[in-house]
């Protein structure tokens, strides 16, 4: 979920000017930009401390502006975005993807497991007008990044703390702990132990303040994997709770299917998938109404694991095509 710590950013007071901040958006729901737009008074303070050079939703547009810090929301999911992220990288000193889409592809990365071209063809009557890559990638799959802030959504506290650290010339803090630790700190009763709820807290990184478990429900992993997550062990535990193999896999892929550690679960499950599904991708869309169990999420997405395998490996390395 996080890159190794990078050297601290030059302190603001050595720049002789306010540091320039850009906020860019790729494929996303806009929810992570709200970390700033919902910040209230802090948004106005931020605008005093930083020279905001690009932030379209806030009304400041200069797509080509050079920036000291660039926040990027969203996944790279079109050829245009693949090109744009290169340009953003080239003119940004400190590049910080924020949120699940920018750090792991987001929920839309579920399509990485499917044949996205067939989806487009089955959904749009005129697919030639649609620019969409076969995958929705993390920013780091395309360019070097200084620090990733995970979470769906990223929190205002996280973003402001990271920006404040950078202003002070320090490397922002990167969460590494698991949600379990947060529950213990808060004295919250374990929902996995006491309710047999399939909680992803044991493998999910902190940052959310353990919100789901505070409501007595299982964590669904929207902050993505923590350091050294024991995915296989937890998957085994879920199976012992009575979840069938597909339900276990769905649990790990629910929000963070693009996160490499959670994809272990797909690979573990892969042989079963090959045996169980044979829906032709081209027919899939038109066939959705059929009450066939074969159209369950994973089998309907992964009509051929050859493409899934290809995409799984693609998400973890730099992609050289535009």
């Amino acid at each position, binding site marked *: 979920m996080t890159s190794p710590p990078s050297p601290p950013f030059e302190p603001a007071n050595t720049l002789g000017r306010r540091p320039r901040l850009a906020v860019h958006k790729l494929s996303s729901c806009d929810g992570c930009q709200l970390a700033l737009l919902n910040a209230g008074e802090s948004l106005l303070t931020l605008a005093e401390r930083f020279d905001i050079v690009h932030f379209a939703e806030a009304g400041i547009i200069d797509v080509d502006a050079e920036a000291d810090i660039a926040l990027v929301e969203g996944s790279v*999911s079109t050829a245009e975005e693949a090109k744009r992220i290169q340009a953003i990288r080239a003119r940004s000193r400190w590049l910080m993807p924020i949120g699940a889409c920018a750090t792991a592809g987001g929920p839309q990365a579920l399509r990485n497991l499917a044949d996205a071209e067939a989806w487009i063809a089955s959904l749009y009557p005129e697919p030639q007008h649609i620019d969409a890559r076969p995958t929705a990638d993390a920013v780091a799959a395309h360019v070097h990044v200084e620090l990733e802030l995970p979470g769906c959504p990223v929190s205002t506290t996280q973003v402001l703390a990271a920006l404040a650290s950078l202003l002070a010339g320090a490397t922002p803090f990167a969460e590494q702990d698991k949600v379990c630790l947060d529950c213990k700190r808060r004295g919250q009763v374990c929902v996995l132990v006491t309710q047999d709820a399939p909680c992803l807290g044991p493998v999910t990184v902190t940052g959310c303040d353990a919100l789901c478990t505070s409501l007595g429900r299982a964590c*669904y992993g929207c902050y993505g994997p923590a350091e050294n997550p024991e995915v296989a062990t937890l998957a085994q535990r879920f199976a012992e709770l009575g979840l069938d193999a597909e339900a276990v896999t769905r649990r790990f892929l629910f*929000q963070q299917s693009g996160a490499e550690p959670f994809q272990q679960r797909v690979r573990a499950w892969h042989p079963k998938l090959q045996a169980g599904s044979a829906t032709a991708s081209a027919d899939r869309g038109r066939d959705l109404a059929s*009450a066939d169990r074969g159209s369950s999420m994973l089998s309907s997405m992964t009509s051929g694991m050859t493409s899934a395998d290809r995409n799984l490996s693609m998400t973890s390395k730099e992609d050289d095509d535009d």
Partner: protein
Amino acid sequence: MTEPSSRRIEVSVLARVEGEGGLEVSIRDDRIEHLALRIFEPPRFFEQFLVGHHYSEIPDLVARICGICPVAYQMSGVSAIERLFALDAPRDPEGDSKKHSGAPHSEPETGRNSQTDKGPYNPPGSRPDSQRNSVSGSQRDSELAPWVRRMRRLFYCGEWIQSHALHIHLLAAPDFLGFDSAIAMAASHGDELRRGLALQAFGNRIIALLGARSVHPVGARVGGFWHAPALSDVAAVAAEAERAVPAAEALLRWTAALPLPQQPQHFNCVSLRHPLEYPMMAERIVAESGLDISVDDFEAHFSEHQVPHSTALHGLLEGEPYLVGPLARVNLNQDRLHPRVQALLTELGIDFPSHDMAQSVIARAVEILQAALEAAEILADVAPQTPAYAELAPRAGIARGVSEAPRGLLWHRYDLDADGLIQQARIVPPTSQNQARIEADLAQTLTRIGLNADADRLRQAGEQVIRNYDPCISCATHFLRLTLNR
């Protein structure tokens, strides 16, 4: 200076809208040859990857369609599922939905005649509410179903307040006051801006009260909420509500005094209609044209089609553009507004219905005040509730549900199998419904200004027109489905 006979006006990236879009206008011989609200925000295929998921996963998955209106997605989703699962139960003894199999409605209402239908204003905080909707038949006699209904309304009030306050102050106000951005406005209009940000924060606090956080909240589930809020937290938010109401009143006065352009146009408004309430979640869809249909009959009247310049589908009602959103809701439901809102509108001399899109900023302020008043009333009387949800028995079938997102009607359909797995999903968001109307408005507005006008002026006017609709492009583009061009 001579104008060329052919010119092109382009806004490559629209500022102060949610998501990514642009505007293209080609003018030839003083006529608009081509006009396109370009939506290039890439599709994210939500309707596709909902397939195969369990119905219980809907609230947490569909929330991700929009960071600005996740509550709306969650409420349309849970409403759809509960309407299917509680099929045998009379959900609304007061006639909200006698049946939802398309049987004739016993109390026909048309939007056009809504003023003659003077249902009394019903404070949602009042106890008679407990007679109204039930989440499931088995829960009808308990306190749970009315509690869930009231809490959902509170939850939704929070979203309307935060989304409208964000739009008015951070996106729209700079247009009316002559600034590029709200940040640039801070020096000269700091008090108004801070009042707006405080209202936005109040809306977010309400959402977090029930959902633990305001963006992609985690509290909602099919059958109710995962957990009732702590009464101490309720009291804290209730105290904020007491401060928010006067702020919302001041905001409405302020929007009423803005120098808005006057340019009424002809268009048809569409919204939900509830027998008693200002509509958030309801069973009937009405239009000024006289349409009055069940939520279940949406697909028979409304269609979507693809246009080359947009990844969002264009919605049409009986083949014609229409408007959804705050102005459409106020136009069709002003008789359902809180008496204090109605009194203030009378005092200010503001008349609805209005067909001037610039007035939509006033309609948003009206709804902020409505929601703040309702939230204050609900927060003043929140009972503890354990559990805070009903367990419903799944059944196979077609689940349809709708609610009024901040930007307008948000219609969902899920085809479920006997295991509760989604076989097919269709989601019709407000912005794709408004797209055709936005383009019609653009053509009229730009023509009225004069197609020979300065390009910057046309560009600016075009952007303002688009912002009046508060388009959420992130929402609009994520809805792709199988049957088109019907």
